[in-house]
């Protein structure tokens, strides 16, 4: 049986060590199958981004478990977790977080550096991917590209390693409505083609219709102590 792309059980997280602090995230269960796409809504500052960082292993939960492709992210640590993240999870940010000073193809190649794909295939894979996303000048520095082009490079980088899960954190927040539609088309279609599950966070109600599965991240309750 194939493991789900994402499996969360009894996840709890709060900032700081104080046990009297409220849970920022209290998520009893969440499962995302391979190739499934889901929109996670919630008010701004409600912990959506924090959840994505917890899933990617960049933050530590207080309780519960998070498995990506059958591997508990927090059962592995250090370099192993970083490599696992690089190979299994693609991340798309509101501000793209591209490597400045690097060209479009170099941004994609950097992601491939940490994958288990043979290095002899990197260049071709990166160029093909960028071309499929209409980036015709792959050797142009990303800071010289338009916002739309940067968005496409960010998507290409996120799916370059063939991840099982793509985490998109408010991907349309900095785009105008037309570009937002185009960006979401791109992200969803690319994930579909690549066979990657997509967990997209947004507080933009306009995105709701694009996803068959939608869940709201509820504001956490004060802890009982």
């Amino acid at each position, binding site marked *: 049986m194939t493991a789900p792309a994402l499996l969360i059980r009894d996840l709890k997280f709060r900032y700081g060590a104080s046990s009297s602090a409220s849970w920022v995230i209290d998520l009893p269960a969440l499962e995302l199958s391979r190739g499934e796409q889901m929109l996670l809504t919630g008010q701004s500052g409600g912990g959506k981004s924090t959840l994505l*960082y917890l899933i*990617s292993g*960049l*933050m530590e939960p207080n309780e519960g478990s998070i498995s990506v492709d059958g591997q508990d992210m927090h059962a592995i640590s*250090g*370099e192993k977790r*970083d*490599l*696992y*993240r*690089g*190979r299994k999870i693609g*991340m798309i*940010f*509101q*501000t793209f*977080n*591209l*490597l*400045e*000073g*690097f060209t479009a193809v*170099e941004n994609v*190649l*950097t*992601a*491939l*550096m*940490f*994958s288990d794909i043979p290095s002899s295939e*990197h260049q071709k894979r990166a160029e093909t991917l960028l071309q499929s996303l209409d980036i015709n000048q792959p050797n142009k520095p990303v800071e010289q590209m338009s916002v739309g082009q940067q968005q496409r490079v960010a998507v290409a*980088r996120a799916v370059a*390693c063939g991840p099982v899960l793509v985490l998109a954190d408010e991907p349309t927040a900095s785009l105008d409505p037309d570009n937002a539609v185009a960006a979401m088309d791109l992200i969803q279609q690319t994930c579909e083609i690549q066979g990657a599950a997509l967990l997209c966070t947004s507080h933009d109600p306009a995105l709701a219709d694009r996803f068959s599965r939608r869940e709201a991240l509820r504001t956490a309750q004060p802890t009982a102590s």
Partner: protein
Amino acid sequence: MTDFTIILRSMARRMFSTVTTVVTVAVAVALMLTLLSMRHASEQAFQRGAGNMHMLVSAEDSPLLTVLNNVFYSGVPRRAMTWEQYEDLAFGRRMPWEFAIPTQLGDSHRGFPVMATTEEFFTKFQPHRDTQWQLAEGRFFEDSFEVVVGSTVARAAGIRIGDQFDITHGIEQSRGWFGREVEPGMEPHVHYGFPYTVVGILEPTGSAHDRAMFTDLESSWIIHAHDRRREGNPSIRTTTAADLIEEDRLITGVYLRVATRAGRGISAAQQQIYNTLRAEPTLTVADPHFEIGKLFAIVSDIDQIFLALAGVVLVSSGIAIMLALYNSMEMRRRQIAILRVLGCGRLRVFGLVLTESALIGLLGALAGVALCFVGVHVVAELMRARLGLVIEPTLEPIWTFVLVMSTILLAAVAGLVPAALAYRTPVVKNLRPL
């Protein structure tokens, strides 16, 4: 795409900082290497001037002064020896000389010293061991008032075969006379009426002799005898060898070499003869090689201070690397955070910064070696122009390698603090919009 590409991109984004840091390291390495290469080369250059002589005798106050004045032309000898003393030394003591060449200094032309000597200076004395004098043009002097000029003199003064000139008493005087205003009463004493003809130009020897001119003793005695005679009778127009008296036949030094067996550089009798001559109250005997060694032993203390200073500069350049990388961390936190998201582990990030630091060290060291290569030749050219010393600086491969490796190590150590900062960079905090 490799780690190296990431490092290069990082360095390129901070081009000004990278270049200035590399230049700082390069200057420190060049300074260190220049001092190391010049130290050895300078001593060799000084030793070269003494050539194949074993001893040098003069009437100077000290052996060191004897060597400096008579081999390196650093000043005019203050005391002279008589021809009688020379003949006694050369032929009267049954000492087994291979050569005993008389020399006389005290005159000059355009600031270049004129050494009066015998033909043996060119046939038996070698400016450096196992190397004979070579003529670039013309021939050695054969007659009175013929002069052979060193390569530096020919080039600097534009002298050619067939040129004629009067020589000047002293050295500083002739330097001040040409092309300069001279205060009244300070006019140089030119030996007018006795023009010398250039008959030969020597090939460079790499020694102080390149900035000297050579003529026969009798000519020199004649021009000074003429001065003596005119003091008594200003109407005297000319002086010849026939007018010379014993007081005119003065020399300022004798180049000596004890006979050795074929293929041997030294003789068993050398030390004994040296000790005998040292006991002479009217003579000063010097072993040129020993005196030069002594001089360098004194200089080496200063040398070590310079080396220590160069070491301090090198350490300072390491601190400069650390500061440059440390300051860059602020703008690199986001890049590090992105790399971490893409799968780059903390240790790899640590390694990237450390490698970048070491790479700056390597680039600085290589630039320093190149700079040193240029620098030593500039210094050598200056020493050749100012002191007449031909220095052939060489970069000792082992020293160069050790210094390059030490610089890389130092740079890597300097990168530890920025690398630790990179290692500890909080990812989530630095991914947020800036």
